[in-house]
């Protein structure tokens, strides 16, 4: 599993990369009450705001961590946004394929991410 500075986790299985937010991010956001997911088939560029996530406190976005295409989204989160707080690592938002998957090699591993968030 790899981590971005935007507090996303990425888990690659073959060509498919599963993306969620870290427990640290979920804690910072507070109780999540709304999740808006992209459509399957959407082509995204790295840095695009592709998920809207709102907590009781504020709205924020999840950015596409890589160029690529959305191949699956976790509709269960739309009905139960609080799952993100209950289990951030188990609550994936979307799966994507990416021609730039090799960029994951440059991302933080768990130890580096823990150091990053201090």
């Amino acid at each position, binding site marked *: 599993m790899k981590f971005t500075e935007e507090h996303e986790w990425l888990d690659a299985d073959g060509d498919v990369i599963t993306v969620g937010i870290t427990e640290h991010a979920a804690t910072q956001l*507070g*109780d999540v*009450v*709304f999740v808006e997911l992209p459509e399957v088939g959407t082509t995204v560029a790295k840095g695009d705001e592709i998920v809207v996530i*709102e907590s*009781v*406190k504020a709205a924020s976005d999840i950015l596409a961590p890589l160029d690529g295409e959305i191949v699956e989204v976790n509709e269960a989160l739309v009905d139960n946004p609080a799952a993100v*707080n209950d289990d951030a690592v188990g609550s994936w938002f979307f799966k994507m394929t990416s021609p730039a998957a090799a960029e994951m090699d440059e991302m933080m591993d768990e130890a580096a991410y823990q150091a990053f968030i201090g």
Partner: protein
Amino acid sequence: MSELNPLPLEALHAELGGKMVPFAGYSMPVQYPMGVMAEHLHCRSEAGLFDVSHMGQVIVRGADVANSLERFIPADVVGLGVGRQRYGVLMQPDGGVADDLMFANCNDRFFLVVNGACKYQDMEILKAGLHDCEVTLLDDRALLALQGPKAEAVLAGLLPAVAEMRFMDSLVFDWMGAELWISRSGYTGEDGFEISVPEDRAEEFARALLAHPAVAPIGLGARDSLRLEAGMPLYGQDLTPQISPVVAGLGWSIARARRAGGPRAGGFPGAEPLLQELMDGPANIRTGLRPEGRAPMRAGVELFHSLEATAPIGRITSGGFGPSVGAPIAMGIVPAELAPGTTIYGEVRGKRLPVTLAKLPFHTPRYKR
């Protein structure tokens, strides 16, 4: 805002794990480890302790304080009995609303509680306008709120006499040598108390309340969602110099005695247009709003008649998620002719989403009258 002022309970907030944020020039707890949602629900079912020491506590003394205050507060101040408190707005000289406040008749003085973000400006208005009175902003007292269905049982454990208080009573008590000014009121829609306590006894008193198993500390995040569900306006959002008290749905606070034809009609800045608006009915009015989907609509969201309409008809002034309602809720200013149940559209991230007008409050208050 260069430096944040510490408040008397700062060390206690740190010990309780409060997440501190800048607010009204102070460092204030926005939430505790329990989280906004659980804190909100705890206050509705048990009791919550809020530190609202950033708010302005003002003493006004003088020979004819009540009449003097009526020059800036379009409410019935003169008719307020000793030991009672009322809600009102404070007018600024140009006729806009400077703030909203609670005022209590403490026999030899009036005690005002004003918003923290407005208190210095309020003091300028009061000092300039009330030459015949002595106006003092206190800097040696903390202000706590204990709110929720168990608030009475908790506070009565320390001061049995508070159980006899009715909603909007305001009385002085002695707690182990500390003079407490207690009103039965709050900003949550629950029964509860606001307690002014000498700064040097504030932590000891707060700990005595927190020692009760029903009491949890509650941050500003839940304070906002609680007052939103209770349909209470927040000055600066739902009531501003540009949003009159009549538009904000606070015309009830302008007592009959101060209205056209009343014995003490007008006599405050902006009286003429305000009393006219009260008689004619406002063109726009604050209403409750229920977004139909799950997406919260927050302050600033523009409202439209239809999916196609080009000009907005109104705007959300407060909005978010209502934990007790279990859905997004909001308040906004819309044309007064729109009836509850009417569906309009709020534009969120470029998309128009349906939102239905709803009567306020979303959560029925449980005051002890």
